[in-house]
């Protein structure tokens, strides 16, 4: 268990600067997620920490020891880390046991100790009874568990996980993310986790960093900080299904921006008591609201609601998904199916209804959060 720190790390491939002065710190025992779209350079960061790449500038330190600078880079085998890869990377020619025992054999641990350490690790990841299987005899989820056990067995200072759940199917993914979290709690390992899946990031992180497609870290914070108080529109839209409504501010009041949306009616966005009109830098901005926060009602109360038309209603199992038209703007709304049925809100397509935005977020025209 150790902390992990990157200070002003940069990396280029040819003329393409992938990372520019990246700095962050992962505390000891923390589960830290780096969330970003594919191709943003997040895997490069993980590979820099692992030692598969070396930085052009800056330094990487693990547990207070500098492991990589532009001049000198410790090879991966000397960093005492565990890595879990997206494609499992379990060795197909070794059994489960042999896979997990390998790092200990390399470390020249006595045979008996290896045996007990491996069997502990196998129990820990719920693979008991499968020790003598070859990877091809295991499911994807089981292979990923082998990879986890193999990375954990040496009790590494830091565990690096590179999109470990992407290749699993939806059900398994949802199950495994809880398991990884559970494992971290049991072992107290520091985890550095790289993913593009915001649901996983939210579910398992103690702290997360959101990176944009240019390789810039936009925001670092706990999941609810990042989710509830996004620093800008990018972070907001990356963390879930976004609804953006262009707004114009007229005399301290917000209206749907009719210039931005052709054919939009000039609808006042009423009853938004916490509307921060003073903090807006200009006359225009954006209102953002998650589908779950779009509150529907069959009856329209003009003083608290705007009028919307149901364009489409789709039942997705536990969730009902609505596509609404508010003065020419398409808005998504979602409700839990039970609630929708209980409140008689399975409104037929083509009908009108009232809409209220709960806990809206406000962004300036260029996407900065206004709080």
């Amino acid at each position, binding site marked *: 268990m150790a902390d992990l720190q990157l200070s002003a790390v940069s990396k280029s491939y040819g003329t393409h600067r992938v990372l520019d002065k990246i700095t962050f710190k992962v505390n000891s025992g923390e589960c830290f997620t780096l969330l970003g779209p594919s191709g943003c350079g997040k895997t490069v960061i993980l590979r820099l920490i*692992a*030692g*598969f790449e*070396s930085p052009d500038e800056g330094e990487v330190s693990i547990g207070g020891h500098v492991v990589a600078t532009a*001049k*000198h*880079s*410790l*090879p*991966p*085998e*000397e*960093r*005492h*880390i*565990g*890595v879990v*890869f*997206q*494609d499992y*990377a*379990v*060795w*197909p*020619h070794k059994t489960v046991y042999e896979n997990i025992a*390998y*790092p200990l054999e*390399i*470390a020249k641990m006595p045979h008996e100790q290896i045996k007990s350490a491996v069997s502990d690790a196998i129990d820990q990841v719920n693979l008991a009874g499968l020790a003598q299987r*070859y990877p*091809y005899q295991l499911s994807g989820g089981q292979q990923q568990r082998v*990879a986890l056990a*193999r*990375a954990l067995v*040496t009790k590494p200072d830091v565990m*690096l996980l590179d999109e470990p759940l992407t290749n699993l199917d939806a059900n398994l993914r949802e199950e495994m993310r809880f398991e990884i979290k559970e494992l971290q709690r049991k072992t107290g390992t520091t985890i550095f986790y790289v993913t593009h899946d915001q649901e996983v990031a939210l579910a398992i992180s103690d702290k997360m960093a959101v990176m944009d497609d240019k390789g810039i870290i936009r925001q670092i914070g706990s999941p609810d900080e990042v989710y509830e108080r996004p620093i800008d529109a990018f972070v907001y839209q990356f963390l879930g299904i976004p609804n953006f409504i262009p707004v114009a501010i007229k005399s301290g009041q917000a209206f749907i921006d009719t210039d931005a949306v052709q054919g939009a009616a000039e609808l006042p966005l009423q009853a938004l008591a916490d509307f921060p009109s003073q903090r807006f830098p200009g006359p225009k901005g954006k209102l953002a609201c998650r589908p779950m926060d779009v509150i529907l009602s069959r009856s329209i109360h003009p003083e608290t609601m705007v009028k919307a038309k149901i364009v489409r209603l789709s039942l997705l199992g536990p969730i009902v998904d609505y596509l609404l038209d508010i003065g020419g703007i398409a808005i998504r709304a979602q409700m839990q199916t039970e609630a929708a049925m209980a409140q008689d809100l399975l409104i037929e397509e083509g009908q009108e209804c009232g809409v209220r935005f709960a806990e809206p977020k406000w962004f300036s025209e260029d996407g900065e959060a206004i709080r």
Partner: protein
Amino acid sequence: MNTGNKLSTANIVLLFSILILVVIVAVPVILIFITAFFENGKFNIAGIAKILSDPDTYQALLNSLIIAAGTTLVSTTVGTFFAWLVARTDLPLKKTMKALFLVPFMLPSFIGALAWKVLLSPRAGYINKLLMAIFGLSKAPIDILTIGGIIAIESMYLFPFVFLQVEGSLERMDPTLEESARISGANLFTITRKITLPLVMPSILAGALLVALYSLAHFGVPAILGTEKGIYNIPTKIYERIYASGGSFNAIRVGTILSTILVISAALILKLQDMLLKKGQYQIIAGKSMRPMVMKLRGLKIPLLIISILYIGITVILPTVTIFLVGGLKTYGLSFELKNMTWNNYLKIFQWKMTKDAIWNSLYLSLGAAFVTMLAGTMISYVIVKMKVRGKFILQFLGVLPFSLPGTVIALGVILTWSGRFGINLYNTPWIIFVAYIARYMAFSIKSNSASLSQVSDSLEEASRACGATHWQSLKNIVIPLIKPGMISAFFLIFLPALRELTTSVLLYGPTTRTIGVAIYALNEDGETVRAAALASIALVIIFAGETIIRKFLARLDQAKVKVQE
């Protein structure tokens, strides 16, 4: 994965790999060009013009091209047809037939040519004699000693190149590509014409390219069937020039100029294929495996099966039996009656120094070359596929270069390089053939090893590094065990063709370093037809035995590989 500027293992491996390819491949090729274009340090355009305007050379080039074109056309047609028959129809015994269609691969084409000469030479050919006797003809109905004959025989033994490629791609092709045509309303005939054939066109072209390159530079069949009637292609012309003109350096120069023509022709063929394929690079392999549609042959089922079996019978069994029988004749020209048969020739093969030497030479040269080439190829492929080092494009280029280099050219380059010019003289030693084999088969090895290495995902090795293993430990414990099947199949891919090699060794052999191919050829040329046949029979036994053992072995490996990869 470099760790600073010191001379890391990565750099050592890279340098070593480049060194091997430069010495084995680049230097010989460069020397050929230098020798061809420069005389006494001066650009020798007049000399080139003289050789090229010589009607002999011109005719040889023309013949080479005609033979290559004809062989490619025939092999491609035959190969594609049989591939389609096996992969897309309800032909009975498909599995057996598929295996049978690969058998001509095992038969060295020059031995085939030898057999066909015995059967179809204009007057003495057994079949011709038979036909003449039956129909009372005064002239032989078939003359194998013609360009047409050469094309026919080469095609007989080269069509599996196309068959393998096309059959494989038909088998791996996503069946829904055809099903969607069917649901669009097209019948199977239309689908075959408009969808299936265009989609496997890249494979057809790939197979055709292999045939064209092979045939263009092929020595054995034209040497056996052509030279007697004055039909030379470039390899036989080079051979003739070098041996007929007293071996003066001038002959070698002529050889290099002809080689240059071969290289240019090969490059043009590659370019042509590239152009044809340009718009046709597509993925047709399915993720899901489903049974492809099968065309019902109905009434044609049995006739086509019979044709297929006859084809195998005629191309494989008939010549093989002929070779064995001729090898048992007391002397050539006798009829196949028991009183004319003897075991003597077969016994002599193991008594004569020349033939004993040849068998032994071929065995250890091919084993040794296969072994060394496999190891070097593994190392070079590792650099190409796995390592992030600057300068590996040189390796990529040099590694595939021999693929398009005809065997004759490699032989000449090797003579130029290893005859003392650089202080090492391997001439007349087995080492020169050894070096040539390495050069000739390096591309195979790199191809095969690269394929298996690229299936080993980088993360498998990185996982090992992260577990605390050093670079070497990771190689030893993870990478090598995983690519072992690929290495072994590379070994056999080299060993078997090298065992029966003729084109290269015929220019390189020394007094005691004849290979099996050279010995058979020399015996035939010297009029020792029965002994040539006897040696050929023994060679066939060795090859068939080798192939069978290897097939079994590879099948086992394949199973293991499937296990590992599933």
